[in-house]
């Protein structure tokens, strides 16, 4: 089953002095249970793609199909985007509040996530009392609480230092797999894409088209860290790096 589909999507932005084609005939899809990464040179229109997925903007031509009843997705931001004035527990309920789904069942589900992922004892804490890794985990659980069809990860680790980044990456990956979620990761970090995704979609520079679709075949490894140590990792990195360099020129 396809959770997300882009069919010949083009998007043109107009300003006073010029028009910019951000995407041109872009087609790709994300299947249920799949972990897909989008990589591309900076400024290639990744933000435009995310806004299209969230239906915050409409395509100029083509079609974006999202298999989600109300069009809501679980969006995980670059910075964790936690609300400083809410406790961890209340942060996690945010999505349910917005969608008027504060039923006992959903609240129990949110609490069970807190318990399962070791945040139970921090539920009355405020975000600033938590470490960067814990905050990112809270942010992920917040997106999971509404049980979305699709998770969007917008460079979710870019605000963390390298060491924490590897840990949080493992953490987020294992939670997503354990909860059987479909995910679309947007990143400019090739190694991060290889270490997490089943399939990598490489985009050209603006106007973005699909340059290459690459299967990582690393599903047998359990964690991103193990994937990084796999024998084919370096080769895949080299290949994608070369392709991206070409895409830039």
């Amino acid at each position: 089953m396809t959770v997300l589909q882009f069919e010949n999507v083009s998007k043109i932005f107009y300003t006073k002095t010029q028009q910019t084609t951000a995407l041109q005939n872009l087609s790709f899809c994300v299947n249920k249970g799949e972990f897909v990464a989008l990589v591309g040179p900076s400024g290639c229109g990744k933000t435009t793609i995310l806004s299209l997925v969230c239906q915050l903007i409409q395509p100029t031509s083509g079609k974006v199909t999202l298999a989600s009843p109300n069009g809501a997705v679980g969006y995980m931001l670059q910075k964790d985007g936690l609300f400083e004035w809410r406790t961890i527990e209340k942060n996690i309920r945010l999505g349910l509040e917005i969608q008027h789904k504060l039923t006992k069942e959903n609240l129990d589900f949110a609490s069970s996530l807190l318990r399962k992922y070791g945040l139970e004892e921090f539920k009355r804490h405020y975000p600033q009392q938590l470490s960067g890794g814990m905050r990112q985990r809270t942010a992920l659980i917040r997106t999971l609480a509404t049980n979305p069809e699709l998770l969007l990860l917008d460079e979710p680790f870019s605000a963390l230092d390298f060491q924490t980044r590897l840990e949080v990456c493992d953490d987020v990956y294992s939670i997503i797999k354990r909860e059987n979620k479909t995910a679309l990761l947007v990143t400019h970090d090739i190694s991060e894409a290889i270490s997490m995704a089943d399939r990598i979609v490489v985009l050209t520079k603006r106007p973005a088209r699909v340059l290459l679709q690459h299967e990582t075949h690393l599903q047998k490894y359990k964690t991103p860290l193990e994937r990084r140590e796999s024998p084919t990792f370096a080769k895949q990195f080299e290949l994608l790096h070369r392709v991206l360099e070409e895409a830039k020129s």
Partner: protein
Amino acid sequence: MKKTFSLEHKAFLKKQKMHTLFVHLSQVGVLALLLALWELLAHFEIIDSFITSSPSKIAKTLVELVGDGTLLYHAWVSTLETLAGFAIGTALGYAIAVVLWWNGFLKQVFEPYLIVLNSLPKIALGPLIIIWAGTGKMAIITMAVLISVVITTISMLNGFCETSAEKILLLRSLKASRRQIFAKVVAPSNVPTLMATLKINVGMAWIGSIMGEYLVSKEGLGYLLVYGSQVFRLDLVMTCTIVLCVLAGVMYAVVALLEKIVAKNYT
């Protein structure tokens, strides 16, 4: 929970404490020194205490005015007017800011008007206010409201518009309505802005009510000040000024305390 500190840590804490104490003592000292100097200069007639008054005369006046209830009455009148102007000005300014945030078109239309109104010295509207609102309390409160409302609107609107775009994006991805975006992100993340505005408005409301009393009133501290200067009772003028300082200081302290309690988790 029992905490044990090392000797060095204790020494450090003691040093910090001594420093704070020293600052407080110096603050009181500056005031004491000024008062003493003022009193001495007046006593030895180096300055003319008819024009400058003197601490002892002010103290005497204060006791008299408190004794016959005059001071309490006038201070109470001014405080009520100020509080009314403060509350109405803040609430109205906040409401206008919400409307302008809500409707981008209205914001664009009214922005230049806000700028003009902000630069306009509100005291210039005094004659108009007297004609429109009469010469009673209404005129004074209107003045206090006018002075605080524009600055409230401008600072709150700026705060609203600078709300983290990321957080708003997050809510929009959850399909939040504009009302929800305001209630869940924009309003809470601007609690610190509101607190800062309240602090500014303490001063604004006092300016408004005293100005208003200069213009129209027959009661209040502003009236006492004008009356005192007209009959050349500088003791009275000085006493009122000091009472005003105290009242405004107390009101500011209350708002600062409120900020400390409320804004703790909003940084």
